[in-house]
């Protein structure tokens, strides 16, 4: 059965995430980001940040929440059990600091098929409480056996 392109362009409601200090430290620890600006508030302020600053890949914590309903949406029609994460791109803007409120909107931008694989491409746009973009993500999920 060919993949359905009907949902291309669909956008899901924005999701807001508040970054907290211990969450920033926890994420920095697990990925081994040992720059003191991720762990020590004084060091972060001395380096010009408002508060503890998150490592760039912290974007997965606040933007993935906006993607989840899109992946589960029956109009998109992804068979989750057969889905793998094929590719990922992030383009970063303003750094995210503890206390920031980040709002992310997900959009389905493309669906296509190669052989028996369906490719579902989502974009996420995240902005902080001042309206500055913190990250834009391009998420490519591959569903086998379509």
């Amino acid at each position, binding site marked *: 059965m060919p993949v359905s392109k009907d949902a291309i362009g669909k956008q899901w409601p924005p999701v807001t995430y508040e970054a907290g200090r211990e*969450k920033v430290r*926890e*994420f920095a*620890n*697990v*990925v*081994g*980001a*040992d*720059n003191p*600006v*991720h762990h020590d508030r004084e060091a972060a302020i001395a380096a010009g940040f408002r508060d503890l*600053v*998150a*490592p*760039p*890949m912290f974007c*997965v*914590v606040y933007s*993935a*929440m906006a993607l989840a309903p899109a992946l589960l949406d029956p109009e998109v029609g992804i068979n989750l*059990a057969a889905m*793998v*994460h*094929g*590719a*990922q*791109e*992030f*383009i*970063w803007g303003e*750094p995210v600091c503890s206390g920031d409120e980040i709002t992310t909107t997900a959009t389905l931008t493309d669906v296509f098929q190669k052989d028996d694989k369906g490719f579902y491409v989502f974009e996420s746009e995240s902005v902080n409480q001042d309206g500055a973009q913190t990250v834009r993500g*391009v998420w490519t999920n591959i569903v086998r056996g379509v």
Partner: protein
Amino acid sequence: MAALKPGDPIPELRETPDRYLPHRYAGASGDFNPIHIDPEFATQVGLPGNILHGLYMMALVARANAALADGDPRALKRLSVQFRGMGVPEQEIVVTGTVSEVDGDRVVTECQAAQGDNRVIRNGEAEVEL
């Protein structure tokens, strides 16, 4: 750091995720897909065991590139990767890369990650502002 030029390697990053790293990454990231944290479930769906999160391995690639700017979180402007082989805990991950373009303070690298012969991240491209 001395001025980088095309063809220069980026500092290699080596990290061996311990057995419970996927569980800690699940907690930190919110991704509790059982293929990452439940060896029994993973085996039932045909995997060799619980596998690493692709985005965790991408974070190591991000770190290797940010190291060009001493880990400054403002330095990494863009990173794109393809996930291929499955990464597993308790095996060393090696992130390597090469500078492909230099334009003033902006450096573009081509980068990848592997566990032995298993190239878990391919066709990585990063843009770093030094």
